């Protein structure tokens, strides 16, 4: 397990308020390569807001976010290249086929050249559905298209916002092994879920409850 000395992502006294509600304040933590952090906390504690802020979607926050010790505003291009964000909605375009979805993704994000779209689709078990429009696929299969996207992307950091909603047990299992493998290969994952992940290796839980 490679732990580079420099942290991939450093968050220094991050605080966020939405409307009149103070979500979390003075949040400090670091994300190292090979580490999986689960963000837990009561509902409405700002888990999704935290991921939005880290992914660069929202810019309403106080504090600093550093990617390899540089503020993300200065290295935004490099930061976006190494980040893959998966929101609540799975960002799968239903009128397109899984293959077209991935082609669309590969045209925008840097992807790994050692695998191909077909190989990745087979890896997630969409062998026979490569050319069927996603509208006809089940929720589980749509989830796998998002999974395939994560696999083929060359991002070093994954930010996953409740990836396990509406998935059956086998899907959750497959996703967890994928996260573990990615972490072992030096990736870093930030994930919010309602239940604990059974992942071995460098996995810890960060509770937003004690930063309210």
């Amino acid at each position, binding site marked *: 397990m490679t732990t580079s000395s420099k942290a991939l992502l450093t968050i220094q006294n991050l605080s966020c308020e939405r*409307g009149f509600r103070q979500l979390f304040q003075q949040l400090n933590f670091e994300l190292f390569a090979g580490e999986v952090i689960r963000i837990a906390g009561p509902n409405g504690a700002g888990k999704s807001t935290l991921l939005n802020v880290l992914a660069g979607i929202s810019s309403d926050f106080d504090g600093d976010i550093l990617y390899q010790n540089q503020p993300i505003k200065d290295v935004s291009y490099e930061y976006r290249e190494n980040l893959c964000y998966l929101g609540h909605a799975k960002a799968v375009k239903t009128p397109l086929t899984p293959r077209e979805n991935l082609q669309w993704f590969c045209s925008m994000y840097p992807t790994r050249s050692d695998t191909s779209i077909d190989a990745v689709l087979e890896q997630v078990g969409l062998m026979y559905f490569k050319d069927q429009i996603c509208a006809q696929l089940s929720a589980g299969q749509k989830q796998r298209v998002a999974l395939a996207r994560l696999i083929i992307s060359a991002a070093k950091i994954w930010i996953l916002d409740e990836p396990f909603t509406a998935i059956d047990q086998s899907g959750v299992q497959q996703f967890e092994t994928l996260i573990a493998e990615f972490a072992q290969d030096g990736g870093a994952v930030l994930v919010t879920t309602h239940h604990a992940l059974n992942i071995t290796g460098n996995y810890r839980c960060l509770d937003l409850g004690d930063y309210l």
Partner: protein
Amino acid sequence: MKSLVQFFFKLGSPNWFYKVSSYLVPVFALLSIGLMSWGLVAGLLYAPMDFKQGNSYRIIYIHVPSSFIALSCYYMMALLAAVYLIWRTKMAAIVLRSCAVIGAAMTFIALVTGAIWGKPTWGTWWVWDARVTSMLVLFFIYMGIFALSKAYEREELGSKAAAILALVGTVNIPIIYWSVDWWFALHQGATLKLTEKSAMDSAMLFPLLVMIAATYCLYVLLILLHSRAEIIRSEQRKQWVKDLVK
């Protein structure tokens, strides 16, 4: 020069703006009341009758100042929009939102008084004159910005959206004014000139200048009042606001 930049920089913090404005509000209140009453008395009572329009021309003393304010308020809003989008100063958003309200109200006044003035002069309540038409378009742009700023639950998003629309509007307003003027010249020819003031003698013109000055002071007063109310509302959780309440 350093202190000037310092001044503008500190103006960005709501707390400091609130303190400074508490001195300015009485000053501008007195100024606008004084100038307004002087202008109205001079305009309504002492200015001579216009040989063509009789006494109905006296409406000019509120129609022209409000159209001046309507346009200058828009460009102030565009400036604040740029400041807000670049530096994210909270105060710029607050003043931007109050500008939208005041600008819309001033444009409304200009339109209504223009229509009322048109009736005795041209016999119709609404005349599609170039100035009135572009004023109507400006009114809808104000309403669009105001509605957009209220459409989002989170205020800062509403302000950002309103700021973007204000900047888009800034590019469009000169084009709209130019194309409406051109359109008016194409269709009507120069017969119907509501805005082309006949050469006014000084007794008529002087009250107009006083009224324009009075309306600008009123405009600053209104911005201060609206911004102060908005500061108190959005910072009500902060300690310095709580200390203000005994």
